[in-house]
């Protein structure tokens, strides 16, 4: 049987997968609850959100200035700064550095930018052995899968599936009812790999312009174990990660962590500035930072400036009714959920990805929870507009909309048509609900449709006016 790889086909299978729904619910519902509780203890959230929004807007408005300041200070601290306009350039730089270091084993701390530019694949193609150290990335590396969430990449995996992956890869029996024992198994498995790596690769949550410092946040401590023992630490970071200074980063950190996991701060928040110094007990001899554009400067020029504020907390997907039904993989891209549906067309072109901005109910939850006030529904509507203007909307939809417009612009015809439709629909109603009707299967296969009132709104209004 041929597998339907269209967006409809993929989402259809995802929705039918009850196991996936269970896995998504277990994590997103916990995340939603924990965020809500965290904000109850933080009544300053609204003010902080306005401030965080202003900080990111300020950085984006002066991004060239801050990039140059960052570069100057990073170089002064002993770091080497590289610039990559595209994903290919970025991967080429990282692979080149690994080769230059004679690296056979590299450890990597989770970075969504690394996923975005295809770094795991590039390292594999260069025959460099890559060890993912974030527990979730470790799980999906074993499963040979892509992340399905930007904070919990293995969110789609149930504990039973993880137990089976670990049993094979760690060579030890696993008990799926004992999650702490499975975590311990991964700890034992990865410890020697951390210490034996030649290069450690991380992303960045913030880049500090005034010191040239790079901030990473984790709860596991894997970033520091990845970046400290090897001879070389490579950072890959999107150019939008800049902040002016440490207190600006702290203001955003309060928003990021509460929105992501409902904690007030990550367990490990580390600022890396330059390579190992004279007298230092540990740390990498070489420290490289790759600044990656990959479409960001184009976003600034094409009406997606607001999206450059995104701090990758994942709250929008945790609260998205669509994400929670279909999961991350159905989006077919690095970034899922509402932020992904805005970013993916910008990164990969709207021609191939026009389904994503349409897979949205525009309920506005994502914007409500966004810690930097990104108007995600507006940006999604913008992509719908573009997709219409570029003629990417299928002919049947265009014809349908044309027909609707034709009728809607002719009031008498509209009233006639709606009056006929209302009466026709009532024929299918049972106790006020329609369970099935020709042409309405797309709706009624999943839930009943309320049967319309006896007459149209306009008819009722006219009756009321004439006092009948």
């Amino acid at each position, binding site marked *: 049987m041929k597998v339907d790889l269209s967006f409809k086909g993929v989402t259809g299978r995802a929705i039918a997968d009850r196991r996936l729904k269970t*896995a998504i619910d277990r*994590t997103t519902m916990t995340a939603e609850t924990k965020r809500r509780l965290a904000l109850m203890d933080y009544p*300053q959230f609204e*003010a902080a959100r306005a401030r965080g929004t202003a*900080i990111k807007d*300020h950085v984006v*408005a*002066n*991004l*060239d200035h801050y990039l140059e300041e960052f570069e100057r200070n990073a170089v002064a601290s002993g770091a080497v700064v590289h*610039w*990559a*306009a595209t994903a290919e350039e970025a991967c080429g730089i990282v692979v080149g550095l690994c080769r230059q270091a004679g690296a056979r084993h590299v450890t990597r701390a989770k970075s969504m930018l690394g996923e975005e530019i295809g770094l795991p694949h590039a390292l594999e193609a260069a025959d460099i052995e890559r060890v993912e150290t*974030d*527990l979730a990335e470790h799980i999906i590396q074993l499963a040979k899968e892509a992340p399905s969430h930007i904070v*919990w*990449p*293995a969110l789609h995996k149930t*504990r039973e599936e993880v137990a089976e992956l670990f049993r094979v890869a760690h060579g030890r029996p696993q008990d799926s009812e004992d*999650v*702490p024992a499975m*975590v311990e198994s*991964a700890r034992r498995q*990865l410890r*020697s790999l*951390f*210490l034996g790596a030649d290069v450690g690769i991380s992303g960045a949550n913030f880049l500090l312009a005034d010191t040239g*410092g790079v901030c990473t946040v984790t*709860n*596991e*401590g*894997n970033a*520091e*174990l990845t970046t*400290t*023992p090897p001879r070389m630490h490579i950072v890959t970071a999107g150019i939008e990660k800049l902040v*002016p*200074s440490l*207190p*600006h980063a702290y*203001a955003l950190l*309060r928003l990021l962590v509460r929105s992501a*996991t409902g*904690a*007030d*701060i*990550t*367990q*490990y928040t*580390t*600022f890396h*500035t*330059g390579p*190992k110094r004279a*007298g*230092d*007990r*540990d740390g990498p001899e070489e420290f490289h930072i790759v600044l990656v554009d990959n479409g960001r400067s*184009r976003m600034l*020029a094409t009406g997606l400036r607001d999206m450059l504020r995104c701090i990758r907390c994942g709250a929008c997907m945790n609260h998205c009714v669509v994400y929670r039904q279909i999961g991350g993989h159905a989006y077919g891209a690095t970034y899922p959920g509402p932020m992904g549906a805005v970013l993916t067309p910008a990164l990969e072109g709207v021609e191939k990805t026009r389904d994503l901005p349409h897979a949205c109910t525009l309920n506005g939850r994502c914007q409500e929870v966004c810690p930097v006030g990104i108007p995600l529904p507006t940006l999604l509507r913008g992509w719908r507009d573009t997709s219409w203007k570029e003629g990417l909307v299928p002919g049947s939809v265009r014809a349908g909309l044309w027909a609707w417009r034709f009728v809607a612009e002719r009031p008498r015809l509209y009233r006639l048509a709606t009056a006929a439709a209302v009466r026709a629909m009532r024929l299918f109603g049972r106790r006020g609900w329609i369970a099935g009707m020709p042409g309405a299967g797309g709706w009624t296969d999943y839930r009943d449709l309320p049967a319309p009132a006896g007459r149209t709104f306009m008819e009722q209004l006219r009756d009321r006016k004439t006092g009948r």
Partner: protein
Amino acid sequence: MSARDTILGMLRAALGPHRPDRAAIAAEAAALLADPALIRPALAAEDPVEAFAARVVSPKVNATLDRIGALAGLPAAVGRYLAAQGLAPEITVQPDPVLRALDWTGFAVRETALPDEAVALGRARWGIAETGSLVFESGPETAVLNHFLPLHHLVAVAAGDILPYLEDHAAVMGAAPRNLNLITGASGTTDIEGSYVRGAHGPRFLHILLIGP
């Protein structure tokens, strides 16, 4: 054209010709830090030391706390913790002159944490009451791996070094160390079905020894 020129050129084209000068940018960045009280949470207690003490044992941080009157009492406090946990009196002590000057008779003391270290003791440069964070600055007296390899991480911090808020730390910090580590609780993960497990890669237990009246 280099990638650097391409990127900066694209940004400048998008941002247009009318741009603020350096001084205006700096003034705007500084203004974004005004009135920090509006954007930070209330402390658990009015006194930062009490707030820190309350915070670190709360479920938010989940550390254990031992308050000792004076630094000289630290080895005995460490001994108590090890005995209570059923651990041998063998520890890595951060090569910090303050810690090294103490009397460690009765302990086997190492300078560098083992790959599978059981217990390491460090001294935090600062503590932050808002979050319950311990702040370390890497250097000749502070190895970074010391905070990450042990299963039990013991950290001494002086009551006089407790700061109220994150911004207060930014204000007192001098030149950036190679690694500035803010450590808040033990290592944890929620990567398997969102259930919280301690001791993912780093320490499973964080024990704080708060020194001072």
